């Protein structure tokens, strides 16, 4: 029983990584009605930027704030330059654009910072948290930051004028325009926020998985699995899904022999497929009703 409890705790700790990513995936889909494939790569690039700033002697929190601001601006610029002209194009063209962006960012990061694995500092320290060997203060801090982001986003979309306008622009663009919302800029704002959330997730994840240009691949897949499990329409579900996926991954690794790190991605895939077959709306999502 103690082994079980410990594994659940460790699962929550790894789950926080997935929760971060799932939150970015779902939140942005809600806000701009599009899912950005290059999200993970953008987060990776931002994390490298913060690492570079720290190498130049900027203190952690200074680099943190600068990076979030940089990512926000970069997200808006990318949207204005590359994706605004594609707004009316078929989804396929957009997916191709995301892939192109993915290739460009990955390759440029590899060129500037090369592919060697780098250590990344944590502001929370890495000593055991509350005397437990399984969860470090960094992981606890990461969980805290994820929940804080969720809370802030909830308030932003619920109680601010801009948040309301963004939701309106995403759900009914025509009507939103009629009441005077600049829907085009709402999308740009969504991109900026996605990029900023991604950069925070990246900086939280980097101390755990280490910094390198391909660090986000597995995390993105797990984040997506978490989002599917929690329900693609629910940010709360996405975070819960992230923790559940982390716990699930740890328990499977402990109790089923022969399942190790090499099976990480197939487990995520199996999870996605099972959820889609058994409960397509996810645990917390609402079923999408289409009028015919």
């Amino acid at each position, binding site marked *: 029983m103690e082994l079980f409890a410990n594994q659940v705790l460790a699962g929550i700790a790894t789950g926080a990584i997935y929760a971060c990513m799932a939150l970015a995936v779902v939140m942005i889909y809600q806000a701009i009605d*599009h899912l950005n494939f290059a999200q993970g790569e953008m987060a990776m690039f931002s994390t490298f930027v913060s690492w570079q700033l720290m190498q130049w002697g900027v203190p952690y929190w200074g680099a943190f704030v600068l990076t979030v601001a940089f990512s926000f601006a970069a997200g808006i610029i990318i949207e204005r330059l590359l994706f605004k002209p594609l707004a009316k194009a078929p989804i396929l063209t957009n997916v191709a654009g995301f892939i192109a962006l993915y290739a460009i960012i990955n390759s440029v990061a590899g060129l500037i910072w090369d592919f060697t694995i780098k250590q990344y500092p944590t502001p929370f320290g890495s000593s055991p948290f509350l005397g437990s060997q399984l969860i470090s203060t960094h992981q606890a801090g990461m969980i805290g930051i994820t929940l804080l982001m969720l809370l802030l986003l909830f308030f932003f979309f619920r109680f601010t004028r801009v948040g309301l306008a963004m939701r309106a622009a995403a759900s009914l663009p025509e009507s939103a325009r009629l009441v005077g919302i600049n829907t085009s800029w709402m999308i740009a704002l969504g991109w900026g926020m996605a990029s900023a959330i991604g950069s925070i997730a990246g900086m939280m994840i980097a101390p755990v998985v280490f910094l390198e240009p391909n660090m986000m691949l597995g995390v993105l897949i797990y984040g997506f699995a978490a989002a599917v499990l929690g329900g693609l329409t629910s940010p709360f579900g996405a975070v819960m899904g992230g923790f559940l996926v982390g716990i699930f991954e740890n328990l499977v690794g402990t109790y089923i022999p022969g399942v190790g790190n*090499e099976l990480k*991605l197939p487990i995520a895939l199996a999870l996605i497929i099972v959820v889609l077959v058994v409960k397509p709306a996810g645990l917390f999502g609402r079923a999408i009703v289409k009028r015919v």
Partner: protein
Amino acid sequence: MSAAEEIVTEAAAVEAVPKRAMTLGYGTSLVVLAALILIPLFVKNFIIFQMTMLLIYALAVMALNILTGGSGQFSLGQSAFYAVGAYTSAILMEHAGMNYALTLPIAGIVCFGFGFLFGQPALRLSGVYLALATFALATAMPQLLKLGYFEHWTGGVQGLVVTKPDAPFGLPMSQDMWLYYFTLAVSIGIYIASVNLLRSRSGRAFMAIRDNEIAASAMGVDVALYKTLAFGVSAGITGVAGGLGAIAVQFVAPDGYTIQLAISLFLGMVVGGVGWLPGSIVGSAFIIFVPNIAEGISKGLSGAVFGVLLFLVIFLVPHGARQVAIVAQQLAAKLKKN
């Protein structure tokens, strides 16, 4: 009011391509065919090998084109089907001692089944989410192939070596040349079958689903069946291409079938023109030769060059090679008039 409006204003996943615009004219097809038959007689073995790969990737790109251009579904997981086909062929040849030509239909059938089954959960997703789910399939595949359980058959990380077949009946041909003509024959057969498929009742059902799912189901098209069927057919053709690829390269290993391959195939389709089957060969040429050119421009930046080129295609010629072909045709017609 809102629900109805949403459906009307929703952007189409893929632009509608009329059925007639999917293929080449009779005369042009013959010219292309003649070129494909004659060129290998005059070039070196290495170029023949590259042309074989060109045909193989063209098959895989065409398979994706049937799925996306035909039925309007995305897939970034084609590398997984390609890998399954390649491994099926390689295992049958090396462990069961089967003739290479016989392994191809088996690879096709195995992949058809695999694709059909994967199509079931994929029904729940559309658009970008489907792309992401298939993306997960593609990234998981190399790890599955490396698994210890299957190592006896798959050779684990090391992979399998496949022997290259000789020309039969004592034909005076090099192995490469024989393999090229063999691949060409298979490709032509599959191309003709695909064109016929798209012109048949099933093909019309695919296109009806692509253009408007609700209208299609109102017309009595079994949407779920045809969507999974499209996945199956596409996976089957990709599997045959994978089998051919294994024979041509003489080697299968998990790291040969990463997400990179799936992305390449997707790019090939976009460059060739979605829904235009002959464009597959143009797209295939793009994914085989452009990385070399990109590496020539800058070694570390080949991915970036690739991405920039893709953006250029999206912005300048959104319909890919099809658009270029149409413009060329119009120019030719104008010249004739003068």
